[in-house]
């Protein structure tokens, strides 16, 4: 026990003296939390639409006016022919092309139905989806307007209407969605990579050999390495929470105990990863490569930017082994919805299990005697 105390004293002294690290610790939350939510706005707006109006009737004009007045779309241009409009889409000058064919108004009245043609750049799925949905709802509204205008007996068909509301984030503000996840990425990179780096540095400089010769038991040594980074992670997380509060007014709805409890379990698992990677690396370069490999995959696949639920089944299974994916869900649940301990228990359990596995593997790998 006493040896642990001396070990921790040394570790903290070294950490606090590492000015570069301390600077990053202060700046990273600020920069990430400012930049990311600013940029990470998925709200689809200002969709560029290219219009070909071959009809030039009052109705077609009104439809176009309605589209541009909706606020979702910006008129990228009028083209004389549909192929020209398509070319605009090709050149990324427009996201959608709409063709109102010749005699649209006339044929609509005569034959009671008429087509409109829409082409959407579907490379970016969300935009295409939402863009298409918005346009269709505007057209449908317009359709109703026409019927009213021309006093066509609407034959009083019954209609089901819908009212919708959004809970937990009524204004659908993006920062509320992004900030909890960003907090997780912040903590992950720092803790996993730094701990791996730190241990490998001792390997490279030879100080680890000195430790191996002493009677320090290996599990004490490992705990002595983990606790400082655990502390670091908690500090970083707290700073992030504060920044989130100040900049975005995000206050966790759920219990702070639950939040920090999950944080500790999460850090435990990521430290295990860092430790494990350190046992497999002999140079700092290797530690960096290995941890970067994992961090990158975690960042992209754990639901920060895209939803895990959209992934195919096999991918979701793989992602279930990533602690960040669980913690990100927990964060969003606790911060935004106020989920409690029992609500997050399955995910917490998963993280704990993975953490146990990683740490055990790491401890077994670390041997004082070659």
């Amino acid at each position: 026990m006493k040896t642990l105390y001396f070990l921790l004293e040394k570790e903290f002294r070294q950490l606090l003296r590492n000015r570069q690290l301390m600077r990053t610790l202060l700046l990273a939350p600020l920069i990430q939390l400012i930049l990311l939510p600013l940029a990470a706005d998925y709200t689809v707006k200002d969709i560029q639409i290219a219009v070909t109006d071959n009809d030039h009737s009052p109705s077609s004009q009104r439809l176009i006016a309605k589209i541009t007045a909706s606020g979702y779309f910006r008129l990228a241009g009028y083209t004389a022919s549909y192929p020209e409009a398509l070319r605009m889409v090709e050149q990324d000058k427009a996201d959608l092309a709409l063709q109102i064919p010749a005699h649209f108004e006339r044929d609509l009245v005569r034959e009671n139905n008429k087509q409109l043609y829409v082409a959407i750049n579907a490379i970016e799925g969300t935009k295409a989806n939402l863009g298409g949905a918005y346009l269709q709802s505007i057209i449908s509204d317009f359709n109703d307007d026409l019927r009213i205008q021309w006093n066509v007996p609407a034959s009083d068909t019954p209609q089901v209407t819908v009212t919708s509301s959004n809970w937990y984030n009524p204004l659908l503000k993006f920062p509320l969605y992004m900030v909890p996840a960003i907090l997780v990425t912040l903590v992950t990179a720092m803790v996993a990579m730094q701990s791996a780096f730190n241990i490998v540095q001792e390997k490279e400089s030879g100080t680890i050999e000195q430790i191996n010769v002493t009677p320090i038991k290996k599990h004490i040594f490992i705990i002595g390495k983990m606790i400082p980074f655990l502390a670091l992670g908690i500090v970083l997380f707290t700073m992030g929470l504060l920044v989130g509060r100040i900049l975005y007014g995000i206050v966790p709805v759920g219990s702070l105990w639950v939040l920090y409890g999950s944080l500790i379990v999460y850090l435990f698992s990521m430290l295990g990863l860092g430790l494990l990677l350190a046992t497999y690396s002999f140079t700092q370069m290797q530690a960096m490569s290995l941890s970067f490999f994992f961090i990158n995959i975690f960042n992209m696949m754990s639901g920060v930017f895209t939803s895990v639920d959209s992934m195919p089944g096999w991918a979701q299974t793989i992602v279930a082994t990533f602690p960040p994916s669980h913690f990100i869900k927990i964060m969003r649940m606790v911060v935004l919805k106020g989920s409690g301990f029992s609500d997050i228990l399955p995910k917490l359990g998963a993280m704990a299990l993975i953490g146990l596995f990683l740490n055990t593997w790491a401890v077994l790998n670390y041997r004082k005697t070659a």
Partner: protein
Amino acid sequence: MKQLFTFIRKEFLHVFRDRKTLLMLFGLPIAQIVLFGFALSNEIKDSRIALVDYSKDAVTTRLIGKIEASHYFDIQHTLASADQLNAAFKRGDIKMAVIFPANFGDDLTHTGKATLQIIADGSDPNQATTITNYLQSIVNDYNAELARDAQQPLQIRPEVQMLYNPELRGAPNFVPGVMALVLMLVCTMMTSVAIVKEKELGTMEILLVSPFKPIYIIISKLAPNLLISIVNLFIILILSDIFLDLPVKGSIALLVFCSILFILTSLSIGLLLSINAKTQQAAMMGSLMGMMLPTMLLTGFLFPIENMPFILQALSNLVPSRWYFIIVKRVMLKGLGFSAVWKETLILAAMCFLLFAISLRKFKIRLQ
């Protein structure tokens, strides 16, 4: 010249003997392409929802049937009362709830209008909007059925065609983005750390004392990463074609040319980073914190640049990967030629030249 080759060979040996780093160098792009290409998607389907039916009549049954039949939704719970909703949301069981008030069918028949209530979990705004829209479209369908039965006149029928990516797969958007990201990050990190490592070890001084021109040293440092990145590029393109059904629709030569420009740009950035870093750790952290964030954000593949505040949009113009991303999308996915990307290529070339010249000069000064 022969000296140069000696240097280059030494650098290659350094890199290829370090198997763990090689794992990352080749493994990362491959893993990312396969994983992201297959797994990442913006498509929303099988969303778990709950139903609360206070009415339980023919109309609600019909509507519920339609919801069940759609692949957008997966009915998780049928709850007895709306009081249970909060708990279900908090558990993360459901994303949305649909509530049919009492006397739904009666209201519809007698007053011509009935209103159902949708409650969506707003913690994921886009998802909430999208599934609300999906449900609305199911309701619209139902309304259209009612209208057809009553022979609704003046029906406008929009025909929608999805271009370039009719199945709305995630891959077309993500693969070019991942290409840009990986090439950029790997080149900057590897180069900067490798150079700083020599500084730390002291072997850099040996090189400096030798009669070899500094530029040879620099070229030899950049050469292995250049080659590895080109190999990576081809691996990515081949994998995309075979596994993700994303062949290069346009000219491969053009794509490779622009990629090399981009790689050289990234290598120059790595060079610049290595000048100020004193330790390997600093170089790594610098590349990561300094490059990863801007690249991910401002390239435009995760988040649309048009949505960003003006200052970020302006900044994104400075990020080489943003231009490369556009080029890849146009050449690889749309099959366009040089005439469509000459502007972006020029910008990329200018950046490459500039960065290389600056980093070369700074490096030489430092060496003195």
